[in-house]
């Protein structure tokens, strides 16, 4: 079994339901996120478009975070999920530095690394990840990539040529795919990040783990 994710960006409407569901399900502390939806506006008024991109751990086949972790706190599960053992983590932040997708954070409460686990605890009980359940338009497609009859496999086959991953040049072989994405969605260097991009405040960076 090789679990994977696919987000159809044609369907995503940026409601952030997945973001909130993830926060609640995994009790993600304030100022940290396992899953977030980034808005990028493209074009010049009046010819403009807003794009929405849910960003989470890519559960790479060749995960830099797993490789750099000195104590195997980050490890592969048999179903392909890159999981984390917070009791073992020493908080060296090597994984945060290694992840090309910025998907790992230091939990300010436990002072250990944390990230999306595809809701491994729910998977173990044969439930879908919280973000999949919350999505009102079924933009999140989750399933077994090894099973040709799974929804995700069918989706990938149907959209052959249009399925993308983030930063393929890094050689991480992500198990997280996007359909309908462009450079502005998937490449952080393709968009400007100006001060005040947050809706509710002007905080653009936060201290890692709440200190240092």
């Amino acid at each position, binding site marked *: 079994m090789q679990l994977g994710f696919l987000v159809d960006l044609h369907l995503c409407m940026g409601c952030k339901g997945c973001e909130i569901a993830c926060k609640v399900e995994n009790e993600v502390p304030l100022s940290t996120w396992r899953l977030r939806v980034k808005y990028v506006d493209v074009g010049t008024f009046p010819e403009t478009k807003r794009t929405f991109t849910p960003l989470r751990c890519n559960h790479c086949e060749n995960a830099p975070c797993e490789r750099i972790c000195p104590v195997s706190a980050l490890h592969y599960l048999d179903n392909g999920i890159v999981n984390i053992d917070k009791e073992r983590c020493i908080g*060296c932040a090597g994984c945060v530095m290694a992840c090309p*997708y910025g998907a790992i954070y230091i939990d300010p409460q436990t002072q250990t690394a944390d990230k999306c686990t595809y809701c491994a605890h729910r998977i173990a009980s044969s439930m879908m990840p919280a973000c999949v359940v919350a999505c009102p338009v079924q933009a999140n497609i989750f399933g077994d990539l090894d099973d040709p009859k799974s929804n995700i496999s069918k989706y990938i086959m149907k959209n052959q040529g249009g399925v993308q991953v983030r930063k393929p040049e890094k050689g991480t072989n992500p198990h997280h795919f996007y359909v309908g994405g462009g450079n502005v969605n998937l490449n952080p260097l393709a968009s400007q990040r100006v001060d005040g991009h947050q809706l509710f405040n002007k905080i653009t960076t936060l201290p890692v783990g709440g200190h240092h």
Partner: protein
Amino acid sequence: MAAHEILAATNAIVTLDVALPGTVWPWLVTVNMWAKSIGTGVIFMLFLLLKKYPDQAGKLRFPTTIVSIIFIHIFLLFTLADLHQPFRMWHIFFYPHLTSAITVGAWMATVFVGLLFLLAFLSFIKKDDAAFDKVLVWVVALAVPVTLYTAALMSQCTARELWQMPTESAQMIFAALLSGSAFMILVFGGKLSWEANRSMSNILALSAFMSFILYMSEYVFGPMKAEEVAAVLEYIKGDGPYTVMFWLGQWIAYLLPILLIVLSRSSKSASILKLAAILALVGLFLVKHVWLMIPQLLPMS
């Protein structure tokens, strides 16, 4: 914001996102790298001096070992201080993951410290120079990977394109040679002949020159190789946040010491050499700090 090119036709702007994490590895890691460079560098220099100037260097066996022990412990202390869970450090030894440069480095540094204490024992308690010199060969051999493992760690940071192998390895080794020779000139220069001081200054100047070439090569040619490197190097170009510190570092660590060493050739001035050594040690900290910080400024997602 990185000053990378945005197509005017696209004009893509992030309009809503969460706050991203700030600096992940702070100045504590700079101290870590800087202190380790000195800790291993002085061992390289002691070995060299014992081979070339055994009569003068004999009395440096114990003090150099103590200097190395002190700086390796500064390195270890700051490594520990940087951990968010420092009391779990023992996990590295009981749950080791050997693909990680952190694990391998921690094991090697531990053995290195043990050997340094053995050297101290042989020189201070046993006063056995022959045994000291035999063990020193192994300590020097181990000092090489202990110096290099941080480069391996940085290259394992797949997200940070700027930190590449083998450039990082070369930079680490040159940093150890530079800081080791500078420290020997500064602290033990008075106990050595002008010839021995000159040998140390040659190593200092050469390693400074090679390091400068490496940084300039990255500065000029790095942006031609990868989009990420180009974006990162914008932080040290123009009015970038680290431009001043970068050039200060290059001048203080490399260019000024080279000039001063050349100047000292005619005057045979030990004071000029000491000034070059101080500048090299201070400048190295700046150079290391800039190179550590700038890739962390770039948003990863």
